[in-house]
């Protein structure tokens, strides 16, 4: 049974900002189908009325006082940048 088509794989790849060549699309389609078929197991479980769980230890929002604290200096923040100019990260032109 086909859970996911090649077109869908290509669509999801775009959402994830990945470019896959034809060969990778074919391979991933087969593998994702296997994995998604396995996940169908979950439909065997009756979850009516079960609250979805997102964290193991239930905690309320962890707030701290809204006070200014030291942060990384600009030079340290930019030290790993593939490209930087002045105090900014530099990227290819976005606006024509």
């Amino acid at each position: 049974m086909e859970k996911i088509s090649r077109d869908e794989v290509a669509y999801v790849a775009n959402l994830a900002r990945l470019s896959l060549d034809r060969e990778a699309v074919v391979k991933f389609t087969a593998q994702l189908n296997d994995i998604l078929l396995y996940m169908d197991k979950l439909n065997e479980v009756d979850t009516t009325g079960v609250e979805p769980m997102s964290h193991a230890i239930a905690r309320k929002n962890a707030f701290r006082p809204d006070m200014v604290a030291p942060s990384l200096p600009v030079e340290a923040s930019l030290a790993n940048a593939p490209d930087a100019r002045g105090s900014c990260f530099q990227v290819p032109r976005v606006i024509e």
Partner: protein
Amino acid sequence: MTELYELTIHELQDKLRAGETTSAEITASVFKRIDAVEKEVHAYITLMRESAIEEAARADEAILRGEMKALTGIPIALKDIFCTRGVRTTCGSRILHNFIPPYDGTVVEKLRAAGAVFTGKTNMDEFAMGSSTETSFFGVTRNPWDLTRIPGGSSGGSAAAVAADECIASFGSDTGGSIRQPAALCGVVGLKPTYGRVSRYGLIAFASSLDQIGPFTKDVEDCAILMNVVAGYDSRESTSVPENVPDYRSFLGRGIEGWRVGIPKEYFIDGIDPEVEAAIREAISVIERAGGSCSEVSLPHTDYCVAVYYVVAPAEASSNLARYDGVKYGYRSGDNRDLLDMYKKTRSAGFGEEVKRRIMIGTYALSSGYYDAYYRKASQVRALIKRDFEQAFADCDCILTPTSPTPAFKVGEKTNDPMQMYLSDIFTISANLAGIPGMSVPCGYTKSGLPIGVQFLAGHFQEGRLIQIASAYERQAKIEKRRPGL
């Protein structure tokens, strides 16, 4: 003659206190061992030899001044997922191959403050996604017990480094078994604490509702020593929990007289290796001889753990890994038409195949139209898995299971079949989903000499209980101490 690198933390501390050795000697011994075996094992991505020698010298000065702290002068290795100030931190990925963090994570800070000497950053599956350390951009780590086999994963380098005596102890992270499974496959002790027990600040995120940091050690006492250093609340990490931290050493040697130990029937499945099953049956009888009373318990949703995990973990990963876009740090592709083109080229060349596969699964499971069928459904079944444990722990103090269904498998054996690889975490994933602590302790060897591990599980914040039963087991079982024939 016993070499210094063969000793445990507590044995070395006795020698340091008695003035029988120095941190400089211990550190030199460990690096001598690294020089001898690292070429075959490949446990490390980056060695920190020079800074280690300096840290050892400072440790020796501190000891002379009578200022010996919890880990003064002890050589410790760190999985390359921990941010280390000024030391390259790759997460096993090309996309971070040149990343030099400007800060230390909390665990690194605490270890440093306790006087530890850092030997280096250990190899791992890329972004901790894998069970064999084969997905690392920096090559495969070999199992010290058999170099044709994998060390487990994703913290395979940290486990192999301890087993091969290339450090005295190490740290890893565990999202679905990434400490306990390699600990079992390499014959060392590995503990995954309760979710929230150890701060994840400075740990590169894989799946934020599952990730936990924990130690690899040569024995249970060393595990308690390290937990005393790293456990506790951290205001910089909003999921760390302000729960009291006991003295974990106080649980050593207490015994388990009268303990009720649950054996989940769902964990003795077809496909479990017969030698592993025999070793676990023997571990059960050891626990009985130590005064525990073992009886069957049921965790009815066990069979769904892998399916839940491979929805939840990739979903969280797809979101966490969105930050790798070639803008602020790490790899950036050249020759980009525009910003979108740069993102795609950077991520496609920067991530390996397994990471892409999981990003794809996660993006799909969270995408419009599939969210309810996959992510929401998995989160509901996850709640039932957690409830299974709550019900089981109403009837027992602790649960005993195999850590891994098989001993270490061959390099390359499962790399082309992701589903088979995923099933090797079948006994460890449940603890991450429920957020409970789990610990793997060596419990014997196969006929061909591969280590086997037994896993203990307890309720939230019951790491002390795990150390207590593991210590009782270790004393009663008297598993023969062997060293890999490297």
